[in-house]
């Protein structure tokens, strides 16, 4: 098991945002976490990356407890996150954004290989290497954010709402890219609002509602479940 989360609880002040969440991500799979907005899905990802300390529970990555790890150490261990809203460094060039993704890596040759790989995945970035990231469109920024995370050579990629605010056409493209990345053997934990799309590409899915998991199972099973259909897939 690449990632195991057991009984994770997170509090903001006195309010408990996450109330005992457990989930597993197996190596090489794409696991999705779906649910309505504001349910706290992103909070879980933040906690996995070490940005929000959990109040209770444990997180294991490759068998190691992550308790008290700094974000940098978690990134170094091979967990990369694409944050919500395509947060690229607007004043840095595209090339510099990609370099920032490989900030902690010392293996120059492999970084170079990953660089080529990213540019292959996203040819649009290749054209704009020296352009400031802030001047690009929303879709291009999302691609840059993906590319930046891939530059870390991650074992586990955390995607936080990658389709948020994009046009249907771009959403389609983004999911194609997600599948392609998965095809290269990168394990992915996808947090998504667009449940239908997510379930289409995922192996396994968790349905999340106000702080806890309400359904879990293989993605196709959930897709067929009447209850899930009604609540999350719009009929």
């Amino acid at each position, binding site marked *: 098991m690449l990632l195991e989360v057991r*009984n994770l609880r997170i509090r903001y002040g006195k309010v408990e945002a996450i109330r005992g969440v457990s989930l597993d991500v197996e190596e090489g799979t794409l696991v999705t976490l779906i649910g309505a*907005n*504001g349910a706290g899905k992103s909070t879980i990802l933040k906690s996995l990356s070490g940005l929000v300390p959990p109040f*209770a529970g444990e997180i294991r990555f490759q068998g190691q407890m992550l308790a008290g790890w700094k974000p940098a150490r978690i990134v170094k261990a091979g967990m990369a996150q694409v944050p919500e809203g395509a947060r690229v460094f607007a004043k840095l060039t595209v090339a510099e954004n990609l370099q920032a993704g490989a900030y902690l890596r010392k293996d120059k040759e492999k970084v170079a290989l990953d660089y080529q790989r990213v540019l292959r995945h996203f040819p649009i970035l290749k054209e704009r290497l020296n352009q400031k990231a802030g001047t690009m469109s929303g879709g291009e920024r999302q691609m840059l954010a993906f590319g930046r995370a891939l530059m870390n050579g991650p074992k586990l990629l955390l995607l936080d709402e990658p389709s948020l605010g994009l046009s249907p056409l771009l959403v389609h493209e983004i999911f194609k890219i997600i599948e392609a990345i998965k095809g290269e053997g990168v394990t992915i934990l996808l947090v998504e609002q667009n449940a239908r799309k997510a379930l289409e590409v995922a192996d396994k899915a968790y349905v999340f509602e106000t702080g806890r998991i309400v359904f879990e199972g293989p993605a196709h099973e959930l897709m067929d479940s009447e209850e899930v259909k009604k609540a999350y897939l719009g009929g």
Partner: protein
Amino acid sequence: MTRVRPDPDRQGKFLGEMKAQQKSRLYFLGLFVLLGLVPLVLRSEYYLHVLIAMFYHVIYATTYRFILRTGQFHFGAHAFVGIGAYASVLLVMRAGWSFWLAMPAAGLIAAFFAVLIGYPTLRLKGIYFAIITWGFGDTLRFIYMRFKEPFGGPLGIFAIPGPNPITIPGLITIDFSQKTHFYFLALALMIVTLYILHRMEQSRFGLIFGAIREGDRLARAVGINIMNYKVLAFAVCSGLGAMAGSFYAHYTYYISPLDFSVLLTIYLAIYTVVGGQERYAGVIVGTVVLMLAGEVFAGYSHYQLLMYSGFLIVILLFLPGGLISLPGLLTRVGSRAEEKEGEKFRNDPA
């Protein structure tokens, strides 16, 4: 795009605050009555002076805080205090006005300058606004220094007459020959200022700025022209500060450009931050405590700045909510211990 739900917690807090406010209004009233009785007991000119200085500094600091509350990092309070002092002194000494006319006039002049400066600059954020207001203050200082006529140059203006005597026939003559007279004038000025600012904070004004600070775009979305409110707040606060400046000039009989340097604003900002920005009473507590600290430390000759700054650092580090948060913090320490016990229990995996 995120939907904001009304937070029941916050509503409760709001109601609680309302009640607390009514209560604190009573406290304030009691305090003012007590302060009014002070000169009957206290004969020492020194203590009266400390209190008088405290009163006009409270005026400076509360008006300063209000501008800070509108989201502007003001760094030029000294400019408007200076305008108030110089304008009123010149009106009295050159134009022969009565102090009682000159003081409000000085406030109006400062408010006019505030509008003049405020319109182009109040839309600027953070440090840029700070640099412009600071620069404005120092430009004025430059003008006072360079123009011996009528500002007196670097040596300033001396032999400023005190306020004109007031005679209530058959009852009493207040001729400002004693500190007590100044004491009551300063106290009255402070109470009036505190009342005006309190009303402003409670009015639409305060609510709008409160909303803006909370990051709520609602105020802007509703289409209220915030600029007008900001300029108005800036002008009113600067005018009130200037009136205190006018009082200062006629109380000390001497002003010079040195008195209105950026150091004054820095002190006001420190009073505000140290007292706690969130509550109206915070800045008052900050002013009173830090001025008292200054008086206490004054006895330690050249170590006093060292002690004062050490005191300042300690408060900023250990009381992020300011001095006003101290009682709340202390009461919470007790209740938190109980809470911790409970948490431990719930934390148990079994």
